[in-house]
């Protein structure tokens, strides 16, 4: 904590030496970025009458939040669906991607460097093209409107990207460490778990955040493949567009739940980006 305070003071000092127009620009950009978020939070707590007004002063109420949790919106269940789908996706994607990235980074394959490229090439197909065949497949497997189907779909595009991200980190790690571990008596798996993974943790954390954001916000496949039981938050947002018009207060309440974990998680994992764990490994 102390080190961070010192760092921030240092940054503040640098800010003082910055040209005035840069400071102004930074503030303008910050306001442009934050205004919609602030507006969503405000709208979620506005009384229904004030939702369509531009008033800044209002008496906060939990009415729209309560409405969002009750039928027909059922944010509670949608939120649970989103959590299960994302958690399930990450729980499978991270170990699989880490293992695949290690293999691509360290082993020689017949066909050489083509395999990681082929993995990435699977992502060149636009989702619109594969969604209909996927729909048919899941229908035949009786998996339509299940969380499992969403996890499977999420994995199909998260694993390739996460593998590439983590592979980049493994490529940059000198093999000395894991070789030392293997000579010291560890099996290869143990060397990966106790030496490679801890050192590559910033990279794996970055891949995890990326995977989380993509999975949490995934809309297109969830819209097509779910109807009732497995609806996730981004799709639930659509249900607030009713015949009586768009229920912005409900949407804002849902928006709170879509935004909240993102802020929490990025805050929590941030320290992994700051730590330069690799320094000291060589030279």
């Amino acid at each position, binding site marked *: 904590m102390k080190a961070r305070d010192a760092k921030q003071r240092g940054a503040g000092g640098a800010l003082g030496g910055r040209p005035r127009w840069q400071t102004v620009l930074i503030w303008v950009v910050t306001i442009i970025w934050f205004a919609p978020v602030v507006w969503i939070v405000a709208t979620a707590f506005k009384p229904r009458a004030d939702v369509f007004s531009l008033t800044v002063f209002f008496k906060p109420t939990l009415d729209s939040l309560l409405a969002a949790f009750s039928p027909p919106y059922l944010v509670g269940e949608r939120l649970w669906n989103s959590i299960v789908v994302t958690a399930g996706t990450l729980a499978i994607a991270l170990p699989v991607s880490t293992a695949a990235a290690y293999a691509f980074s360290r082993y020689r394959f017949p066909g050489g460097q083509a395999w990681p490229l082929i993995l990435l090439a699977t992502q060149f197909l636009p989702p619109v093209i594969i969604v209909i065949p996927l729909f048919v497949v899941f229908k035949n497997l009786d998996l339509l409107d299940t969380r499992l189907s969403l996890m499977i779909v999420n994995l199909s595009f998260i694993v390739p990207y996460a593998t590439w991200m983590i592979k980049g980190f493994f490529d940059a790690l000198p093999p000395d460490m894991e*070789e*030392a571990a*293997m*000579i010291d*008596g560890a099996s290869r798996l143990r060397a990966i778990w106790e030496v490679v993974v801890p050192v590559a943790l910033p990279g794996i954390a970055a891949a995890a955040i990326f995977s989380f954001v993509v999975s949490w916000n995934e809309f297109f496949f969830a819209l097509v493949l779910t109807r009732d039981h497995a609806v996730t938050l981004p799709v639930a947002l659509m249900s607030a567009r009713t015949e009586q018009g768009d229920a912005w207060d409900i949407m804002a309440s849902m928006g709170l739940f879509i935004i909240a974990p993102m802020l929490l998680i990025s805050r929590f994992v941030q320290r992994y980006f700051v730590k330069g*764990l690799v*320094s*000291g490994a060589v030279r």
Partner: protein
Amino acid sequence: MAVVRLVNLEKRWGDVVGVANQSLEINDGEFMVFLGPSGCGKTTTMRMVAGLEMPSAGEIWIGDHNVTHALPKDRDVAMVFQNYGLYPHMTVRDNIAYPLKVRGTARAARAAQAEEVARKVELEQLLDRHPRELSGGQRQRVALARAIVRRPQVFLMDEPLSNLDAKLRSSMRAEIWRLQKELNVTTIYVTHDQIEAMTLAHRVAVMNKGVIQQLGTPEEVYNRPSNLFVAGFMGSPPMNLLPARLTDSVIDIAGKKLTGLANGSHGDVVVGVRPEDVALSSPEMGLLTGQVYMFELTGEAVLITADVQGQKVCVRCERSLRCEIGATVGLTFQREHLHVFDAQTGARLQPD
């Protein structure tokens, strides 16, 4: 402690030969240095002993076990890497204790052993630091401590000193020498630095292009190089190598016919003589004469390079000597300091 035997060991990648069918026996407790330029196969050979590379052919024996296809962890070897290979996320204490941890030693026992070993390499003050907080020399000492903590059968050291500055290198060299003597563990040490080879080794294997050129004590390798490669590689400044002809015990060199230096007839040869074995003399007394071409002060000696009919001959002289560039000097040397090699094959000719 064990004998290490390499039997017809070979490593190829496609058409590229890394190590070409080499056999070698390293005695129990011996300090063996693999010496050669980069790409000569010395590191590959060591990595095959460690189990980090699989040989294309041949066998590796450690003690009574054929370990050719064994995993690194089952070979009971320890290795010190050029870039230290420390675990950056662990403290010095955990780094040193890691080999014990993976082998299931109890927590208390491994803490005690790690501390004992740390004391041996003077790291006891730094046990709770991370590798990134250490200097290069300290990191290398951690790597050494981690290697000796487990009392392995064989030490492998892959250019352990090449990342250190010159001063630290000589003190760490002494440290390694002392540790090896004290622990008496069979050691393979890879280096391209002939000083390290000369000072540390019981025996040196000089390698080039995947082939062991000469195997012998540092003295033998230095005093009786078995071919032109070894002659040129060992020694700094390197041995003077001059083309010549040997007919009827007369050496025809740089326009002079010298007798009494070698016997027999051989045609085209290369004559070698080390800078410290050449002496300056007056032009009339010299076996060869030349003009002073370069004058270098190294501190403990003076190096004079003379131009002998277009050939450069380096002479190591007493440090107070001074001379003019372009001055004519004579060069003398003794028969026993002369090395004669076949010009075609590069092999040493003298049988003695």
